[in-house]
């Protein structure tokens, strides 16, 4: 019985959350939506593990919906590139769902909890769809579903601060423009090739080997659209308010996974499809993505230093970290792609952990967490504070944490590409990261203020510590992440050579 479902694991990891989301949408109960979501995501994890097993045997799964062969039907593709991400995704959503319950309870109206979890699962399912889909139009659909779900979730933060509405609205407008740009690009590509399937697209595009203006225009539209969605500098402006005014659990999910999945698709598009126009690709990477990444790293870090609101600070640091990832991806070689994937993994964990901890503080403080409000938290809430400290040190990139591994491989990639200027810039900006992170630590431990404290809640600090321990674990025993990233880079590069 169960085996029947396992065979279709590829579809079910996406369909299951969407299906359950419909079931729990109008459930009046306060706790059942959470339990059902949790069970769903455990199943989700089982399915992902099954996919991992399959991939380790066969190396490639193409799942055709309704048995329609590509290029007609929509297909999902799971191979070495995305299996690692899928696994990370599965584990992280489970942990953050576990974490989300108490947060939602205190931040939103408990009558809405069914709706909130419905949207939550909707976002999870569609983000997972982005990871798996092999169809450029289907991607647009998932992109929009996830955007709409996360916008609604962000707007739920309005109970805390009405600015959440403005943030959500801006995200909606900018996001929709991005998505529409992407669709225009898809239109161009479809007009030229008559296909939407990514593998087929490569084959069809090959006939225009010299490249045509229409194709280049289409490619540019698609890339710009995705850049908006992935919050690559300078089209990142929607991200900081959206992340910082959303309910804390939502910020956790979005910061850790939303931009990462889109970045993943972005790089897949670059290296799997557009690679057949090497001159265009290197033009884009060298003269657009590379300088933008450097700017993102530098400006993101600088702005973060001057933030007073902790969630905003973390959001701007995300901009800088996305810059690291795109910098790595702009290097065009195996080491660069590997280090980009490594940082996707590591940054997802780090930012997830940081947002979880800060979200908990927000609940304890019952207001937005600013630097001042953190005074003495280190003494009052030592368990969470210590987790925050470790995550932060990892963000800076100190050894024995996974942030260091990211940095090591990024340096290696830059070094093999002889980009010494970038090395210097990355080094400087990681030192600046100390500045903004240390401001937090200083407030937490080195200024005391008397206030009534509550006991820390194990339901909340347990997931935080799971993330924190994994940060240390992957800092010491880094080979799983490195191997997955290597695998991803291998697949992308080998596609390029064929």
């Amino acid at each position, binding site marked *: 019985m169960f085996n*029947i*479902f396992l*065979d*279709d694991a590829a*579809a*079910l990891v996406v*369909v299951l959350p*969407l*299906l359950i989301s*419909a*079931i729990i*949408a*109008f459930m009046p109960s306060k706790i059942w939506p959470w339990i059902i979501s949790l069970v769903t995501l455990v199943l989700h994890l089982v399915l992902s593990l099954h996919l991992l097993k399959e991939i380790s045997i066969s190396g490639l799964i193409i*799942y*055709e*919906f*309704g*048995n329609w062969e590509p290029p007609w039907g929509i297909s999902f593709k799971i191979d070495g590139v995305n299996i690692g991400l899928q696994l990370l995704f599965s584990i992280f959503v489970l942990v953050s769902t576990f974490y989300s319950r108490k947060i939602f309870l205190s931040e939103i109206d408990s009558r809405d909890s069914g709706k909130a979890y419905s949207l939550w699962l909707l976002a999870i399912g569609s983000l997972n769809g982005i990871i798996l889909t092999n169809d450029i139009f289907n991607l647009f659909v998932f992109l929009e579903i996830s955007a709409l779900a996360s916008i609604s979730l962000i707007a739920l933060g309005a109970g805390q601060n009405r600015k959440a509405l403005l943030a959500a609205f801006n995200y909606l407008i900018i996001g929709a423009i991005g998505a529409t740009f992407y669709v225009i690009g898809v239109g161009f590509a479809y007009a030229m090739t008559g296909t939407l399937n990514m593998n087929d697209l490569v084959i069809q595009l090959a006939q225009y080997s010299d490249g045509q203006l229409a194709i280049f225009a289409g490619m540019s539209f698609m890339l710009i659209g995705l850049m908006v969605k992935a919050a690559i500098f300078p089209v990142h402006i929607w991200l900081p308010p959206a992340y910082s005014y959303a309910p804390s659990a939502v910020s956790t999910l979005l910061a850790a996974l939303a931009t990462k999945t889109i970045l993943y698709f972005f790089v897949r598009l670059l290296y799997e499809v557009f690679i057949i126009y090497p001159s265009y690709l290197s033009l884009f990477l060298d003269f657009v993505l590379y300088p933008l990444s450097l700017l993102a790293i530098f400006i993101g870090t600088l702005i973060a230093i001057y933030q007073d609101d902790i969630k905003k600070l973390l959001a701007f640091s995300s901009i800088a970290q996305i810059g690291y990832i795109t910098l790595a991806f702009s290097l065009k070689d195996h080491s660069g792609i590997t280090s980009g994937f490594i940082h996707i993994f590591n940054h997802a964990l780090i930012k997830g952990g940081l947002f979880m901890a800060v979200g908990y503080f927000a609940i304890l403080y019952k207001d937005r967490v600013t630097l001042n409000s953190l005074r003495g938290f280190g003494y009052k809430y030592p368990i969470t504070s210590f987790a925050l400290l470790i995550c932060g040190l990892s963000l800076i990139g100190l050894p024995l944490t996974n942030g260091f591994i990211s940095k090591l491989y990024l340096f290696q990639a830059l070094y093999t590409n002889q980009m010494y200027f970038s090395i210097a810039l990355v080094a400087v900006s990681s030192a600046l990261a100390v500045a903004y992170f240390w401001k937090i630590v200083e407030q937490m431990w080195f200024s005391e203020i008397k206030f009534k404290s509550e006991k820390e809640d194990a339901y909340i600090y347990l997931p935080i510590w799971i993330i924190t321990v994994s940060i240390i674990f992957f800092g010491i025993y880094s080979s799983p992440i490195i191997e997955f990233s290597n695998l991803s880079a291998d697949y992308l590069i080998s596609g390029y050579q064929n």
Partner: protein
Amino acid sequence: MRDKISSSPVLSVVSKILFAPIIIFGLYVQFHGDYGPGGGFQAGVIVAAAFILYSMIFGLSKGETLVPIMINRYLMCVGVLLYAGVGIVSILLDGMYLDYNVLSSDPSTGQHIGIILVELGVGITVATVMIALYHSFASFGEINE
């Protein structure tokens, strides 16, 4: 406010006359979608248009008695579940997700069954969502009071 909409007799009579044909037309589009232009999206909107027209003419509360909000909400979910359920059933019958061929012994009949069920799900969802949208936007001003 909600029942004070003064409708002229012309409007109310015309809408009463039109109500049933619109729904019939919606159903036609719905089931025609199997082998011609049409389908759940369009049909759903047309059916919803009938209900929305009714609400516009006779006021929101009348509209709500026609389609109670709770039932509307459940129908939304039922539509999605119908769609997804077909997929799950096809998996249970050892096919791919949404693989209609296995729904019946004859693949072509299977395709018919599958597409009709799926489109029905789509239609129900679209219609109910449209009605819900209209109701929630139209009733906006009253929540403040």
